[in-house]
């Protein structure tokens, strides 16, 4: 799981190291870190923006270990759906129950349709849709695309996939 956080450190030596140590100890990986030494919060602490990759089950433990060292987590926003793929569907998209097509992906729990643009030229003509799917990981994305592909096949829709990866 990828998590973006803002934490606050006291302005004493060794604090940054103390904040990063537990991440590595818990098998995490630092994706980015922004540290502005000259910025201060009204509380006199130094704010740090940090994005890490960490198994979800270790997140509470990390926050607890930070707490022991006097480090506070001010904001926490997870980037749960980090994989994104754009696809095209062509066919009678609305009349083959668009809602159930989207549900096939959304009901997986690991992938979601986050954007859909539909163009309908005329009643008897086939529609086109651009669909963006997000998923929790690469494997989950492959699985979500397989599910959508089966759904499209069942409904006589043509699905156009990207060149790379599938």
């Amino acid at each position, binding site marked *: 799981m990828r998590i973006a956080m803002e934490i606050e450190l006291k302005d004493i030596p060794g604090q940054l190291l103390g904040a990063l140590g537990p991440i590595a100890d818990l098998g995490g990986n630092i994706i980015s870190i922004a540290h502005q030494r000259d910025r201060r919060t009204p509380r006199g602490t130094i704010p740090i923006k940090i994005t890490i990759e960490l198994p979800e089950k270790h997140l509470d433990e990390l926050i607890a270990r930070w707490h022991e060292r006097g480090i506070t987590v001010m904001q926490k926003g997870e980037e749960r759906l980090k994989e994104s793929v754009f696809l095209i569907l062509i066919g009678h998209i609305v009349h083959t129950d668009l809602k159930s097509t989207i549900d096939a992906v959304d009901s997986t729990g690991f992938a979601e349709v986050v954007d859909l643009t539909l163009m309908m030229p005329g009643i008897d003509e086939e529609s086109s849709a651009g669909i963006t799917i997000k998923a929790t990981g690469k494997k989950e994305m492959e699985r979500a695309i397989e599910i959508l592909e089966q759904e499209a096949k069942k409904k006589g829709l*043509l699905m156009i996939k990207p*060149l790379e990866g599938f």
Partner: protein
Amino acid sequence: MEQVKIIIVGFGTVGRGLAEVIKRKKDHVKEELGLDIRLVGVADLRGAMVDADGLDIDDALEWKCEIRDIDSLQLIREGEYDLMVETTPSNVETGEPAFTHIKEALMRGKHVVTSNKGPLALYYRELTDLAARSGCSLKFEATVGGAMPIINLIRNNLAGNRILSIKGIFNGTCNYILTRMTEEGLPYSYVLSEAQSLGIAEADPSYDVDGIDTAEKLTILANAVLGMDVAYNSVAVEGIRRITPDALRLALDKGYVIKLIGEAREGKIEVAPRLIPKDHPFALMRGTLNIAEIEADLAGPITVMGRGAGAIEAASAIFSDIISIYR
């Protein structure tokens, strides 16, 4: 000076293109390579023209040589020649008449060079086994990608590599139609008519637009250079008929174009329209150009492009195949 007596069976666009090329390059090949290439026979449905010393190519192109009342099979069975070039119209269902022509020539110990996809897409193993047993060469660079070198490139220049995958644009007609639809926002049926009037698409376009041609080429590549044993009818094929201008616009808004892609690797052989990032080399192929990306275990990715169709382009591939047999 080594003499090479050639017959051409099927004297249509490609066969005639080869006759032109032989005429144009004959002296050059004599001087540079010591090969005396002679066209000693031509046959198609109209009959046959034969001259053991070599036909006058200008006369042959206008059917002005003496026309004998013998058919192609007779010429193949009874003619005096070293190498047959098979350029009859391709048939994807039976591979005939080329399949029989090629077998008859190989059984008689003659080398064969062909641009005919049908027999190779349907009976690849049978034909290559027969060639090996007869100790003859069977060459078919012209079946895939016209003038774009790919089979010989992999066999000669990438020898020792294992080829992991090949993907690319192998049909100029589809690429022309999709390019025009994307750039002009025109519907499929309109651009198809335009392509037909320009001679880029056939009156019956299904062979190209339904992906059959791409599937045949992919089958030949899978067998010839990927070490797979697949028949044409095991390829999953989707053509371009259903592509809408709306779909192309939606793709473009997200930074993609749509191209008909053939892709072969172990466990997968598929022809389908795919979304290609706008800055990918495949996206830059406009009009009737072909392109292929080869993934090799030692060399990594290699990309080739070239003219995928045309009489002289196909003849170029055939001519190179002929020379390579004797060099």
